[in-house]
């Protein structure tokens, strides 16, 4: 298509996106969060089995600002947030684009349940700032934003929507596939939904449940079937974190992907990091919801294909 025409047609979505970002910034500033900026180009990052980086002269374009933000947290910055451009290799689809925007925020002294509450507050603030009601319509679904939101454990979500249990799905290496085909289409359709307590093996930087260490204090926020955010009660145990990284590095090696240099400075800072919770929210996905867009292409000015 005429590319200038496509750009012109996106004006309304880009205006909503910009207003949304301003509303988010206002929300965190009003709660005494400090806005920070950390480098996009980094020598190493958290090893994760299924996230692939883009190389940049021997370093990496970060896939998330997590490690740098946690080093700030460990240095006494108790409430921080950042809008970070992130890069992931090989991710392109209606919901994915290789260069995208994550909103990450971290807060000392809370756990993932408090973080769920803070998400509820944030979304109400955004919709008010946009001059919208408390219901947003996304692809035909009327989603009520007022809390409390539906909160379902991952295990219960498998019981409710999937033909096999969470444990069976992991055993058969079908967890992701079942999540995508059986669970995601049903969640967050009438109000935002939180899936919580993921299997420990699927949360490399998360604290485990004290009463059941097979589960991690991780949650995902869904709206209209879209995954919007991922949060943890943060792991602060250095040895445990090192062991988890080693396991993720092994995953990468067995899949023929190069392991990363060990994030030594991050690990060294971890013992000073307070008990805390942190979250990464897909700004592009949230913009899709507030503009009722079916694809991520409609909420960014340029897709890589247009460059």
């Amino acid at each position, binding site marked *: 298509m005429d590319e200038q025409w496509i750009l012109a047609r996106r004006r309304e979505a880009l205006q909503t996106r910009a207003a949304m970002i301003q509303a988010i910034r206002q929300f965190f500033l009003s709660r005494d969060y400090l806005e920070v900026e950390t480098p996009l180009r980094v020598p190493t990052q958290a090893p994760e089995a299924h996230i692939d980086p883009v190389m940049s002269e021997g370093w990496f374009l970060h896939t998330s600002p997590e490690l740098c933000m946690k080093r700030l947290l460990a240095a006494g910055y108790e409430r921080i947030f950042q809008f970070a451009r992130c890069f992931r290799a*090989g*991710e392109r689809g*209606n919901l994915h684009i290789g260069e995208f925007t994550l909103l990450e925020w971290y807060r000392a002294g809370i756990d993932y349940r408090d973080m769920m509450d803070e998400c509820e507050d944030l979304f109400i603030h955004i919709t008010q700032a946009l001059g919208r009601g408390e219901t947003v319509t996304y692809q035909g679904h009327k989603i009520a934003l007022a809390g409390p939101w539906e909160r379902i454990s991952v295990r219960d979500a498998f019981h409710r929507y999937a033909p096999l249990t969470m444990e069976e799905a992991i055993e058969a290496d079908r967890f992701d596939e079942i999540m*995508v085909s059986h669970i995601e289409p049903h969640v967050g359709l009438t109000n935002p939904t939180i899936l919580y307590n993921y299997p420990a093996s699927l*949360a490399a930087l998360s604290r485990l449940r004290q009463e059941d260490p097979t589960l991690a204090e991780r949650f995902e926020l869904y709206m209209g079937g879209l995954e919007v955010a991922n949060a943890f009660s943060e792991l602060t145990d250095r040895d445990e974190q090192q062991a988890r990284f080693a396991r993720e590095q092994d995953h990468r090696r067995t899949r023929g992907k190069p392991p990363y240099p060990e994030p030594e400075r991050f690990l060294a800072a971890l013992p000073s990091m307070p008990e805390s919770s942190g979250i990464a929210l897909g700004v592009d996905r949230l913009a899709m919801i507030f503009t009722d867009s079916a694809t991520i292409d409609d909420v960014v000015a340029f897709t890589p294909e247009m460059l």
Partner: protein
Amino acid sequence: MYSASDLRKNLKIQIEGEPYVVTDFQFVKPGKGQALYRCKLKNMVTGSQFDRTFRSGDSFEPANLQEKNMQYLYKEGDQYCFMDNETYEQVYLTEDQVGEASNFLIDNIEAEILFFGSDALGVTLPNFVDLTVTQADPWVKGDTAAGNTKPITVETGYTLNAPSFIEEGEKIRIDTRTGDYSTRVKE
């Protein structure tokens, strides 16, 4: 050899010796999970369809197809006739085999006909074709809001959305892979 990341709509791959075309494709990746490539596949010989989800790491052979450049002649009943300009050999494709390409077929257009052995299976059009607009609401002068669209019809009867400044009798270029308006053609 293709890998999962090569998958896209209209890719032709071989599974157990049979040629399949990807008719629908979605890249999905949950949470911190693995990349999944959800495909609808259609057997190019029998027409039977099924869904299959591939993972990164999966690989497969390209379908063993031959392509021959031929010219579209005419439609008879539900058969589309194409001719090899060198040998004058003619082949027929059904409506189903031609699929969405029928939206862009104008007489004498050259296209690649796909063969599996001696069976003609389908047609691949050039990525862009230029077609004349046969119906479009007049452009209201002053409607300069960039980004406005309206439905228009082209000479094959195909209807699509185009910028509001497009008028009847003009030629436009259409991307045959997506069916979308691409640009206005100035002659």
